[in-house]
């Protein structure tokens, strides 16, 4: 288990590096070289002081007329070296911005574009907040890692290696003391880091619990007021808040004391080296100058080590985020094995011929194995044959559904929540694929139809209207992107939306924000009907499109819908039975089976479930 986890972590790192290498090979090389130069210049600074003292200052000591030219020259040389270092620092800082932002831009784009190709089940099976957090938190911590942690750690390692090498060349025994000290530091930072991340996990849990509670209470705040429940709500919150405070304090504490620990272990090492070095120098094994230099190295060595241990936490966090990012990118996309496409067509001598222009007539272009191509006119006829379906393997939702909707017919579904009404409509547009049986559209198995073309031929008005930030016009135009303004107005008139839109301050150019906050449920519903009208599909699916509108408003919406439904095959799921009375076919669903079917009069005469529902004797929900 542990092993496997480690390997995936490596895989994540490898993959991240892959992004860098593919696009930014040259830049990366420059960055690496710049970091190395910059760190070497830093280390050279330490050597410089020793060199300066031993070779330039000491000889001058006691001289009456000191000649400073040599000293001046060496300082100027050092100035040049420093200048190179500063430039290198700027170069890598600057280039890292391009690299990290470029990678993030690419990753975000990949995330989003890939997400568009995922099947509906992906979105249905997890909270949207979880997906959002990938775009915000995970991408953010990746940015921190790429632009801050990685350069810092790399630079620190370069410095440490250089210093270690310098140490080795000076004295092996003393270096061993330093290595021992380093091992202690690594242990301490592992211990503290481990504790810190343990409490960090606890903190995230507590935060999640508190977030959930706040959200629930804010959502139900009005109920809290009505029931005078303020005190209890405060008490429960205080408890959760206290827990969070505790884990938060501990996680922070371990992180805070990491640096002082590392630095002071470094100080202890310094003393040790000084004492041992002093003894060695008394015995004449070491020169005084090299001990002094060595002590400088010890001091210079501690700092980068502290930096690395501090960055480790961030890197671990960012890698966990990167894993979630890659999980989304690796998520399997919607499979589309369809090859039948939807094309514009015209009639020539009674035969259907493909046309390049928009003709208003559509046809299914069906290529056969033997190379023949046949055209079937798009009519909007839908058949279900012994359809079985379940969202999970062993949990059937629909059993043996067989039905046929002819061109222009209105077919309605009624039944309790969970009876499978919405599921049926999810199958027609292949949001979900059936396990057994067949669904045919104009006599073509829908599996053979390209998903995009299938969906283009179906219009949908859903219970939850989804509006986008933009003008009213933009939102209607979502149904047909190249629609002229005239067409948009037409569609709005057809669906009875025109009237309320004209009454808005900016009419069709009124901005919609936050999913249409300022609009009533009915108005939003009308907009989504207008959108479908503009799309002008032969088959329409109306899923509880009027459920949350009061009866008087519903009348206006209903009129719009009726106009829209004319001449189309329509599947209706309705809450209010009054809206489906004029259906050609009504299906009563119960636990995924069709238990009654027929038109309104037939079903009423039957005095069965539909009759019960209609008269209000049976609860519908």
């Amino acid at each position: 288990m542990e092993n496997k986890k480690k390997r995936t972590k490596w895989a994540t790192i490898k993959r991240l590096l892959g992004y860098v290498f593919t696009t930014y090979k040259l830049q990366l090389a420059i960055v690496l070289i710049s970091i190395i130069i910059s760190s070497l210049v830093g280390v050279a600074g330490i050597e410089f002081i020793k060199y300066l003292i031993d070779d330039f200052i000491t000889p001058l000591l006691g001289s009456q007329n000191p000649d400073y030219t040599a000293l001046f020259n060496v300082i100027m040389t050092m100035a040049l070296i420093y200048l190179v270092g500063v430039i290198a620092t700027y170069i890598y800082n600057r280039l890292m911005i391009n690299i990290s932002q470029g990678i993030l831009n690419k990753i975000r784009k990949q995330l989003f574009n890939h997400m568009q190709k995922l099947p509906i089940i992906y979105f249905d099976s997890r909270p949207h907040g979880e997906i959002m957090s990938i775009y915000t938190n995970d991408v953010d911590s990746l940015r921190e890692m790429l632009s801050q942690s990685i350069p810092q750690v790399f630079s620190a390692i370069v410095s440490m290696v250089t210093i270690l090498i310098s140490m080795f060349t000076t004295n092996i025994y003393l270096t061993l003391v330093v290595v021992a000290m380093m091992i202690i530091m690594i242990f301490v930072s592992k211990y503290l880091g481990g504790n810190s991340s343990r409490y960090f996990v606890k903190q995230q849990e507590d935060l999640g619990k508190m977030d959930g509670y706040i959200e629930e209470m804010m959502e139900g705040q009005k109920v809290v007021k009505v029931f005078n429940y303020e005190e209890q709500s405060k008490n429960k919150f205080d408890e959760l808040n206290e827990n969070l405070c505790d884990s938060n304090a501990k996680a922070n504490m371990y992180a805070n004391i990491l640096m002082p620990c590392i630095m002071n272990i470094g100080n202890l090492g310094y003393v040790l080296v000084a004492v041992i070095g002093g003894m060695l120098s008394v015995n004449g094994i070491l020169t005084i100058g090299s001990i002094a230099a060595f002590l400088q190295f010890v001091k210079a060595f501690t700092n980068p080590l502290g930096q690395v241990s501090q960055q480790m936490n961030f890197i671990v966090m960012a890698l966990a985020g990167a894993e979630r990012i890659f999980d989304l990118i690796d998520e399997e996309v919607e499979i589309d094995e369809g090859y039948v496409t939807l094309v514009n067509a015209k009639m020539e001598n009674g035969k259907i011929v493909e046309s390049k222009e928009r003709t208003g007539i559509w046809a299914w272009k069906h290529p056969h194995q033997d190379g023949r191509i046949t055209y079937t006119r798009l009519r909007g006829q839908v058949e279900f044959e012994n359809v079985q379906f379940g969202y999970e393997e062993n949990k059937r939702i629909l059993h043996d559904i067989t039905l046929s909707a002819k061109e222009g017919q209105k077919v309605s579904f009624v039944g309790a929540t969970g009876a499978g009404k919405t599921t049926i409509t999810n199958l027609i547009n292949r949001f979900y694929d059936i396990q057994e049986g067949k669904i045919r559209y104009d006599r073509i198995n829908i599996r053979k139809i390209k998903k995009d073309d299938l969906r283009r031929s179906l219009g949908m008005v859903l219970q939850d209207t989804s509006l986008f930030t933009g003008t009213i016009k933009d939102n209607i135009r979502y149904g047909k992107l190249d629609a002229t303004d005239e067409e948009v107005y037409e569609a709005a008139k057809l669906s009875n939306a025109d009237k309320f839109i004209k009454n808005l301050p900016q009419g069709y150019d009124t901005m919609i924000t936050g999913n249409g906050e300022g609009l009533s449920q009915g108005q939003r519903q009308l907009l989504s009907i207008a959108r479908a009208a503009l799309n002008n599909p032969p088959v329409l699916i109306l899923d509880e499109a009027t459920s949350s509108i009061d009866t008087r408003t519903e009348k206006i919406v209903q009129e719009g819908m009726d106009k829209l439904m004319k001449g189309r095959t329509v599947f209706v799921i309705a809450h209010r039975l009054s809206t489906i009375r004029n259906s050609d076919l009504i299906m009563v669903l119960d636990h995924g089976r069709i238990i009654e079917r027929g038109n309104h009069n037939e079903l009423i005469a039957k005095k069965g479930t539909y009759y019960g529902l209609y008269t209000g004797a049976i609860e519908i929900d």
Partner: protein
Amino acid sequence: MIKKLASYVKEYKKQAILTPIFVVLEVIMEVIIPLLMARIIDVGIQNSDIDYILKMGILLIISAIMSLIFGMLSGRFAAIASAGYAKNLRKEMFHKVQDYAFENIDKFSTSSLVTRMTTDVTNVQMAFQMIIRILVRGPIMMIFALLMVLSISGKLSLIFLVAIPFLGVILFLIATKAHPIFEKVFKKYDKLNRVVQENLNAIRVVKAYVREDTEEAKFKEVNDEVYKNFIKAQKIVAFNSPVMQLTIYTCILLISWFGSKLIVGGSMQTGQLSSIITYAWQILSSLMMLSMVFVMIIISQSSAERIMEVIEEEPSLKNPENPVKEVKNGSITFKNVSFCYSDEEDKNKFALKNIDLEIKEGETIGIIGGTGSSKSTLVQLIPRLYDATKGEIQVGGVNVKDYDIHALRDSVAMVLQKNVLFSGTIAENLRWGKKNADLEELENACKLAQADGFIQEFPSKYETVLDQGGTNVSGGQKQRICIARAILKKPKILILDDSTSAVDTKTDSLIRKAFREEIPNTTKIIIAQRVTSIEDADRIIVLNDGEIDGIGTSEELLKTNEIYKEVYESQKKGDDEEDGE
């Protein structure tokens, strides 16, 4: 604002004060340690004096241990103080929201309140921790290190007189130049998140209309904007490290040059030269840290403002001075009441206009009307969820404004249109109505609301755990639990705001029958879309556009009221036809 914000440190004042104290002590140790180190080299090693090295070594070890202890303590206190501070801020906000009136709640959206209590608090907490640790550490470190340099060589300290302002000004310029661009980046980020959020919410529409390409183009645009602006901002910040290095390296070279001359001149020792360089690092890096803290403070400023907005929002309803503690009976009087929501732009746009109404104790009142006819608004004035803009509302003969709010709301139970069940068992949810109700009481209330039947059918009965929002029971069941919850309060007035819409008509009528028989003295007000739900009420109020269009029994209204007639007929038509068939 800072003063007000600081006041929430409260019981963590001790830690908040101890942190900087230990930071100062830690800094002192950090300044002493290089001094001791210089001694070891200059005196101990130079003279090969092991005794001296050991003596100084022990001093150094003691200093290191003290520095370690001070560092750990300051880290610990800082963690506790900042975590506690964040806790207090959250608590203050949450408690404040509990005291909000409906009008205040309407001002903030749920998601914005959640963000304010989480993300914004975290931002402020980070700034707070930085202030008590680094904002103290920076200047102190600078002062002590400068003092050390001064004690070694007054002449060399002059270098810093130039270096510190130079670096300070440049860091300041970088921060001020980058900040507005970062603000822009955050705005673009919001936009990017919005595009993703909308896409997630509308994924069915996107797929149904095959608009994946449109969405991708939309995302690409904002993604590229984020990219461009981020680079623009970071380009400026990228100067930070090189400028810092440039300054420190220049200082080192100047110190080396002038220092060498001083050494040769005999007024300084070689060991002191490296000490001064160490101090140069300390001085300039503390300046660097300070600039980071300032950036952090600037970033957290808007978070702090958002937090203060919640805390400083004044609850628009307050208890009167000498409140009436008891509601005598369930009679209700509206005297020329008009109401407008305060957030309406047009102050003359009244949601309710000149309502005069007299409701007797025990009466059953039905209210009907289209969306926007202010049915909910009308009843929400009774338990004083909002205050009337004009006119007066009396309950039990007393102005609602004279009651103790809790006492009033205990007597007026209301089932809201958007009713909410909370995660927890059914029993826990019901006990919102009466804290210590025993099972029998719960069952009685549920029987009345026709909820006992289906609850008994659940395997765990009253201990059945509901998900957040009660999503695991059906809409009709949810409504009946909510009604039972209200009944448990044994109210004098019971208001149902469209609370039986998902309940079947038969059960609906059973509920009303139980109301009549079991709680005859309770005044009942029922808002409904369905005519059958209010048909048998003592009186029906027809609301239209915030005005009373008609009052009377169903029969009377059928004769006199057009709106009622229209609604009645549109809903009853189906039934009549059946009778004919």
